[in-house]
């Protein structure tokens, strides 16, 4: 699965020597809410260039972001169905816990019944975080099966991104549950980029205009 994903991504990933007319024509309008220049707290963006729209750079950055979001560490809790995924191969969670209304499970199968505040030590043991949950039922924020184009559009659309403003979206890279992906517990591979690289690409994608890659 992991390998397959990498191969597929090669089609999307911009290569230095290639130009991107398709991307340019495919630019999407930036949401009004995202025009604010206020920096989110807790995110060091001082090294980044000043916000300036640049669809090529933005799309390029998003393709890095996409690799991370589609990795098991992110996608497993953003499934297309109502049961989270598990493992490096993103199979259905064995005991089929349900999303529940608030994304925290149902009845005796609530996320926190197994997922502790921290990773439980040992191979195959439940990873943990104090805020372990899935997106809620009214805002599923599905990653599984989304193309880069679809996912980018979804991420910037407040009706699909959890009503996040641009600031909130920028801040999301520093969310504790997102960061937990880089401390996945024994036997699990972290996302393909480092946390810093991811944060950088994330911010860059948004600040350069939050463009979506072309629909294939």
């Amino acid at each position, binding site marked *: 699965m992991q390998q397959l994903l990498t191969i597929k991504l090669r089609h999307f990933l911009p290569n230095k020597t290639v130009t991107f007319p398709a991307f340019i024509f495919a630019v999407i309008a930036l949401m009004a809410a995202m025009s604010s220049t206020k920096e989110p707290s807790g995110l060091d963006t001082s090294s980044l260039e000043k916000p300036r729209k640049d669809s090529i750079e933005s799309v390029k950055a998003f393709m890095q972001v996409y690799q991370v979001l589609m990795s098991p560490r992110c996608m497993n809790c953003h499934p297309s169905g109502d049961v989270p995924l598990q493992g490096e191969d993103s199979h259905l969670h*064995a*005991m*089929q*816990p*349900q999303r529940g209304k608030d994304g925290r499970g*149902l*009845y*005796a*199968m*609530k996320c*926190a*019944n*197994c997922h*502790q*505040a921290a990773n*439980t030590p*040992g191979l*195959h*043991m*439940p990873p943990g975080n104090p805020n372990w949950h899935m997106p809620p039922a009214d805002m599923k924020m599905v990653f599984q099966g989304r193309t880069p184009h679809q996912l980018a559009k979804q991420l910037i659309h407040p009706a699909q991104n959890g009503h996040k403003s641009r600031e909130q979206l920028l801040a999301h890279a520093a969310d504790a549950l997102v960061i937990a992906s880089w401390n996945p517990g024994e036997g699990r591979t972290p996302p393909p980029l480092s946390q810093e690289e991811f944060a950088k690409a994330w911010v860059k994608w948004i600040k350069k205009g939050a463009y979506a890659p072309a629909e294939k």
Partner: protein
Amino acid sequence: MITLSVNKKTYQLDVDPNMPLLWAIRDVIGLTGTKYGCGAAQCGACMVHLNGEAVFSCVTPVSRAVGQQVITIEGLSAGNDHPLQLAWQELDVPQCGYCHSGQLMSAAVLLRENPNPTDEDIDQAMAGNICRCGTYSRIRKAIHHAAELQKNGK
């Protein structure tokens, strides 16, 4: 020292805060109704209620339970007469019985949050509890029966 409230009784335990709640309950407090099945939150034999939620005690550090209310199978009812216990007895649900402490603790959360569960609700609620004897069809029937008992105020 760790202070725990289990079945409304207070215990002082001199244990590693990382010790799973399961072993604190079984080996230190001495309540053996809560079972060890897998140690990896896979089977549900170890379920207890922590502030009313059915936690898998084999992966729950005892420190998480400090200052919280822990209820084990021994504390589900005073007289073995929770509607679920009565239904389990009426339908003779258990075979070997080893998993049923967990099954009952799991079902108790379901019935509290959904007094009139469908088969689908039951499947969703109970999928965390493995029964090697295969008593699943009776578990379904007994939960429906318990829902009736609960409605009738038993």
